[in-house]
């Protein structure tokens, strides 16, 4: 059996492990346009922040490929899948044959058209290790940085570089920070935390044009001078290889619950895939690392012949800035239970006898117990919801349910 994986990040590595649990004999070839050993993409901001060294960024032990008998072709670009011939064509003309193919191509930065952007020399995206390494070279205490985008990527980049530059301004056309994961109140708390660190936010605004390589004119009429531009507006799933081969795609490559695409023997996992969102029962790109790992594992097992489905993908995020912590999961709909102190904030959203989502800023201890209620769709009338609302404790479960958790192998 010839397994080929396009991509070398979380989904790919977890697929390799899953394949090898079942098939020690088949050949596995990994193709990636990145030359690095597999690393967790979200680590790049922590690298700039000084929380992890380059040496420690490898996602698995350095003997991983050897131990799993994987052939790596790194620094190559796959340009075409021929699903009838079952080959992947590389940019250099080589053709790689496969019996089972996993597309784990991730996503890329989305850069909207902005007039004059070509004049800006010092501009960076913030997705890959190489982005972080080139941005790092440009950093300096006298540098003025403009970040376009106040989402997860823009703000983690901000945390990574703030202490290494002179000043950071963040511009976003949305009216608040982290709109994809927080409600308005939560956004304000984080914005204020970051403003106290000296960051300037310009919201409800966007770049009309770059008048020269170091100045942005905003739609509001403001002119902003900068030395370094970081573009963190959004991402797009890398679907083209499958789409061009005739596979069904929406915003991501559509997969079933086994991570199969609409093309025979081709699977997709991770940020490039639109797979089942367990909570809305729709196909979505749930671009977060845990889902990439779980989808990759499911794909790997199925590729090696073990039928398995992954049905519990949910949106969730753990993020924080300069020592603060934010945890979110699910969707913010239904009735709300909330608790606030000067430094903490918790909202639980519930409806139809189910916990639908939560936002916690500050006291994140044992938040996974809430996540498990969402992930397991635990009926709230089977637990002491009044108790668990206040504190995530196992005491809220029945004695029998607790015994399963604490006295049996799980």
């Amino acid at each position, binding site marked *: 059996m010839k397994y080929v994986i396009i991509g070398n990040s979380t989904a790919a590595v977890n697929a390799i492990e899953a394949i090898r649990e079942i098939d020690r004999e088949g050949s596995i070839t990994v193709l990636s346009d990145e030359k690095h050993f597999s690393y967790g993409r979200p680590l790049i901001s922590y690298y700039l922040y000084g929380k992890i060294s380059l040496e420690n960024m490898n996602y698995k032990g350095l003997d991983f490929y050897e131990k799993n008998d994987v052939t790596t072709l790194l620094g190559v670009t796959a340009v075409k899948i021929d699903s009838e011939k079952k080959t992947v064509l590389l940019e250099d003309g080589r053709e790689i044959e496969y019996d089972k193919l996993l597309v784990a191509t991730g996503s890329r930065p989305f850069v909207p058209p902005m007039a004059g952007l070509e004049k800006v020399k010092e501009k960076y995206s913030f997705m890959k290790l190489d982005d972080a390494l080139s941005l790092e070279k440009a950093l300096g205490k006298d540098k003025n940085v403009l970040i376009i985008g106040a989402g997860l990527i823009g703000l983690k980049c901000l945390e990574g570089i703030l202490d290494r530059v002179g000043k950071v301004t963040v511009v976003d056309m949305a009216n608040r920070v982290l709109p994809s994961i927080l409600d308005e109140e939560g956004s304000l708390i984080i914005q204020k935390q970051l403003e106290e660190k000296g960051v300037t936010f310009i919201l409800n605004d966007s770049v009309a044009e770059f008048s020269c390589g170091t100045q942005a004119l905003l739609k509001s009429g403001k002119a902003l001078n900068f030395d370094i531009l970081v573009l963190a507006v959004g991402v797009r799933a890398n679907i083209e290889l499958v789409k061009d081969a005739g596979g069904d795609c929406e915003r991501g490559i559509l997969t079933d619950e086994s991570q199969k695409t609409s093309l025979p023997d081709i699977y997709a996992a991770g940020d490039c895939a639109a797979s089942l969102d367990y909570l809305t029962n729709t196909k979505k790109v749930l671009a977060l690392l845990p889902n990439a790992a*779980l989808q990759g594992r499911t794909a790997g097992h199925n590729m090696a012949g073990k039928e398995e489905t992954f049905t519990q993908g949910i949106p969730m*995020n753990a993020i*924080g800035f300069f020592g603060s912590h934010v945890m979110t999961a699910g969707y913010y709909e239904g009735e709300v239970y909330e608790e606030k102190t000067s430094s903490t904030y918790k909202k639980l959203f519930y409806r139809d006898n189910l916990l639908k989502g939560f936002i916690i800023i500050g006291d*994140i201890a044992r*938040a*996974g117990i809430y996540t498990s209620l969402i992930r397991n769709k635990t009926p709230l009338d089977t637990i002491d919801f009044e108790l668990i609302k206040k504190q995530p404790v196992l005491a809220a479960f029945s004695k029998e349910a607790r015994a399963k958790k*604490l006295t049996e*192998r799980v």
Partner: protein
Amino acid sequence: MKRIYVNEQWCLGCHLCEYECAFANSNLKEMYHLKGKSIFPKIHVEDAADGIHYAVNCRHCQEAICVKSCIAGALSRDENGMVVIDQNKCVGCYTCVLVCPFGAVMPAEGGKVAQKCELCTKNACGTPNCVAHCPNNAIVFEDRG
């Protein structure tokens, strides 16, 4: 693999296991040096209404979602099946805290990295100190398959 299990009906709620855990993972010579100090044990006793008490620590799940969720590859499973953490790799994002259904992975002292029970394999005890010192066999270390 041997794991820690609890006998809820025998737990007195004395919280001694929390001290034994903190002591086992400290470099202190005697337990009394913990007097007056904040402790950061990897085991946690829940005290509920009606005299219910029990200890909770890592279950070393067979499909450990913390391992799958770790952005740094800091959490992994060793050759015996124990879930271990490499704190040199941990960046303290606490995605593990977000996903652990038992609330058994937590920030370590100082709040920079995560910690979890590793069955006292990384300290001088070698075997779980909470189990060794539980006065009532309310925490046991057994192979239940």
